[in-house]
């Protein structure tokens, strides 16, 4: 009986430590794992391609914050990526070549646009939320394509050439790679801290049932709005990096059809988990980069994959890895090893 009590009490002592101490330690391990993973795949895929993958992973994390954590499916996240890309590119083209300032401008404008549109958008849920985002994305796409063509050069787009900033020469692929990797790790770390905090618990609760969160005294609108702005700003960062990586911006950066990619990445990786978003981002990029070489109309494959994921594998790849770890390694292998050690 006493043993039972003791075993019941065990988990209560653990969480306090787990909650405060390991976030840094585990976070550091995560950061190293991510960095090593991207460094390892670089020789296989080329520096430029992996840089592109990492930018997409940043974008996937911004989408995951909205969809995976807060439960709001957006079909218009490309609007903020495009805003970041255009603002960063236009700043370099018309005002100054400082790449860091240009990136900051891209993030700030994407965040401000999300702040403005969020006032309307976050009041909605479900299909309405998804479609309003899509509608704004369409508006943005046609704005850069036509009415603003004097500045954006319409369909042709424009070249972006950032000036050197000490050692920070974005014309050099390895430096661009290192900078993007740094951004990816920074975004991952910040989002990890944020989603492990009470704020993270709150947005996950909003995903489950917003009304019940209101019963607990929260003004859910403010939290949703903040999350929307944050997701927009991170997408803006991804957009700015895209502009610098390609040295070129055109309306494809805001193309509504590209939203499918980020939705797919989150679903295949496992929504509601930053690792899932990164893994899904890489899987999607591998598929979209290499499948067209072997399969004509490869998008059809994406469609079938999406159907299979939705019907059979909702937890995504990372979800199943976690489950495997929980049930096989943690519950069977670890106790067995501990038993051996005791003997």
């Amino acid at each position, binding site marked *: 009986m006493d043993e039972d009590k003791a075993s019941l009490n065990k*988990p209560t002592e653990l969480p306090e430590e787990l909650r405060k101490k390991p976030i840094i330690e585990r976070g550091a391990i995560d950061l190293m794992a991510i960095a090593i993973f991207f460094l390892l795949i670089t020789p296989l895929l080329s520096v430029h391609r992996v840089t592109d993958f990492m930018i997409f992973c940043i974008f996937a994390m911004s989408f995951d914050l909205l969809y995976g954590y807060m439960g709001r499916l957006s079909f218009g996240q490309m609007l903020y990526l495009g805003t970041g890309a255009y603002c960063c590119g236009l700043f370099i083209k018309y005002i100054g070549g400082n790449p860091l300032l240009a990136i900051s401008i891209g993030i700030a404008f994407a965040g401000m646009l999300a702040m403005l549109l969020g006032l309307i958008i976050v009041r909605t849920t479900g299909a309405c939320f998804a479609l309003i985002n899509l509608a704004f994305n369409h508006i943005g796409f046609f704005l850069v394509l036509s009415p603003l063509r004097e500045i954006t050069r319409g369909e042709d787009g424009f070249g972006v050439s950032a000036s050197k900033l000490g050692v920070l020469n974005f014309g050099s692929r390895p430096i661009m790679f290192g900078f993007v990797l740094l951004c990816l790790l920074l975004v991952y770390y910040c989002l990890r801290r944020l989603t492990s905090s009470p704020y993270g618990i709150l947005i*996950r609760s909003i995903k489950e049932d917003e009304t*019940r*969160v209101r*019963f*607990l*005294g929260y*003004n*859910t609108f403010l939290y949703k709005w903040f999350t929307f702005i944050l997701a927009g700003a991170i997408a803006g960062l991804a957009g700015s990096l895209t502009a610098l990586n390609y040295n070129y911006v055109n309306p494809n950066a805001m193309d509504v059809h590209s939203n499918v990619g980020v939705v797919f990445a989150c679903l295949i990786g496992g929504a509601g988990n930053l690792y899932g978003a990164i893994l899904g981002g890489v899987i999607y990029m591998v598929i979209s980069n290499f499948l067209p070489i072997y399969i004509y109309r490869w998008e059809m494959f994406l469609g079938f994959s999406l159907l299979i994921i939705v019907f059979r594998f909702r937890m995504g790849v990372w979800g199943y890895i976690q489950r495997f770890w929980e049930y096989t390694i943690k519950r069977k292998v670890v106790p067995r090893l501990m038993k051996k050690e005791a003997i």
Partner: protein
Amino acid sequence: MLVIKNLDVAYGHAKVLHDVSLDIEKGETAFFIGRNGAGKTTLLKTIIGLLKPQKGSITYQGQEISSLSPEELYLKGLRYVAQEKKVFGNLTVQENIEIAAYASQEPLERALDKVMSIYPKLEGFLKTKAGQLSGGQRQILLVGRSLVGDPKLLLIDEPTQGLAAIVIEEIVNILTGLKDQVSAVIVEQNLAMVNRLADRIYVLKEGKVAREIINKSEISDTKGLEEYL
């Protein structure tokens, strides 16, 4: 403490509550009983600010609250425990408590102590997803969580619905223990519970208050109360 006067509530054009008036004093445990569709849950939802009345007033501690939102009412000490034992199933038990502690700016340890004091067994499930708890444990978690912060009035909707007799007994014991600490309004069909806990009963029938019972002998008369269900 809570005074409702001439309250009319409607869902669209369908009026659900008609001219409801009641008065609950500080420290009391009041029950709303009545048949399904009598308007008990609607009345609770109106008090907590989910539904806006067409007519009438709701006064809490001398202040009109009918126009306030659920989050504003939470800060005034009103706690709503909805029916169907809806915890945040994907969050752990600890996170379910933490989210309430964060809202009321109460230290997590104190919040955990409060919940554990009413049901120590929950301590072993702190890292378990709340969705994996049994119905009774979920209900106890919800009641426990409502004690976080500085609650003054608990509004509990059908706390024993669908639970086994042994769990109901446990919940009744918990609510009995809370009687001296906080006022409560409970919607309930379980008359054994009503007999043991009620200081005042309002019988609702077709959206109206059919009777107010404050007489102790009437409250403990299960047979007499049965005719209202």
